[in-house]
């Protein structure tokens, strides 16, 4: 049985690096799929989020390079759910996804990532784990707040959630 992220600094950092890396990759994937489906607004939004995520990947990897990280198989990570907490689930995306729905999904995963780090910072006895977990939780909190502010700004503008499907999926038999 592998150590838990709050018990071992290497295991914790391995989780942090994977959490940030998978979030960046997922945002890039979402940006690419929206581009293919001509949802330009969300393409730009997810691309911007992917770029921010890459900055966080670099930050975490910078910390990781001074530590020995265990090699974990994808199914050995101890996430609270089935995937890393900052990943927007595939099934929550749609080609008609609106900016409001996208920002709500972003807000949700940022809160999940914050909760993940917060829980570790509370459970860890190692000072370094507590320090990094607290730092990352604060960063995720800032991201969640930024998503919330963007959502509030969006509510002030009209017509953001209208959905017009110019090419409905079912064949017109």
């Amino acid at each position, binding site marked *: 049985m592998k150590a838990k992220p709050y018990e071992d600094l290497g295991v914790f950092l391995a989780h942090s690096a994977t959490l940030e890396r998978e979030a960046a990759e997922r945002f890039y994937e979402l940006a690419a799929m929206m581009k293919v489906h001509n949802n330009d607004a969300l393409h730009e939004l997810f691309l911007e989020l992917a770029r921010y995520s890459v900055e966080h990947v670099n930050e975490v990897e910078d910390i990781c390079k001074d530590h020995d990280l265990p090699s974990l198989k*994808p199914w050995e990570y101890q996430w609270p759910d089935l995937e890393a907490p900052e990943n927007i689930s595939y099934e929550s995306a749609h080609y008609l996804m609106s900016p409001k729905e996208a920002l709500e999904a972003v807000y949700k995963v940022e809160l999940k990532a914050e909760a993940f780090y917060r829980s570790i910072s509370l459970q860890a006895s190692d000072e370094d784990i507590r320090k990094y977990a607290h730092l990352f939780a604060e960063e995720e909190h800032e991201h969640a707040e930024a998503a919330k502010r963007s959502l509030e700004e969006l509510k002030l503008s009209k017509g953001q959630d209208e959905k017009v499907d110019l090419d409905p999926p079912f*064949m017109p038999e």
Partner: protein
Amino acid sequence: MKPKAYKSGVKPIWCPGCGHYSVLNAITKALSVLDQQPEDCVLVSGIGCSARLPAYANAYGFHGVHGRALPVATGIKVARPKLNVIAMGGDGDGFSIGGNHFLHACRRNVDIVYIAMDNEVYGMTKGQASPTTPELWDHSKLTPHGPEVRPFQPCSIALASGASFIARGHSGDPNGLAKMIYEAIEHPGFAFVHVLSQCITYCPEQSEWKERVHDEEVVTADPTEAATFLQREDGFSKGVFYRNPRDVWPMPHQPPQDSNLRKGFEL
């Protein structure tokens, strides 16, 4: 190699929300754990949305003919036994036009993996009922009352046909699916991985699969026990159900030596 290194530069054109993105991720994660060199792996597909997957992976790929992923994969494995051969496709490709190949691939037990991405619909041709569509699914105008035919049961049929590894995963759990695919690759013989992979464009109700899927790690080598389980389960069980390694085809045979014919014709 990191999982990302097993992805090609080609961007998928699947719909946002499609489960196949997750299957692609699971395959790349499994290959990464195996530290498989891309040139040692072949991904073979037929026709359909899911059959596009080999183009999105950094490995050898063969985008074949509708329903014929398994015969192509069998040929590659028999000719080049050291290659890791993974066949894949959807429920229409694999269980309708390719249904007969599926039965005989299970029976033959060549050492390949078959990943069936089941979304219960023909997506590429705009949403018609497939062999695994529920009887009363009435979303398509071609079947206004639903197909009114019992859905094909891939895992039960794989068991009855002789598959030696049978598992079911869900696209909502890419890490669990990666483990299942890893185990399927490691299994000597025909390994069948049935994946519930949602198509939210034609079947928006499938976004609820995440709530319906449940873990059911049976892992038996007893076909009777596996059959009983598969007849009772609700189609949303996830796990390895059956694992019973047996002789892999083709069998090794020694060439005949010192036959009378050879002796008679020897110079």
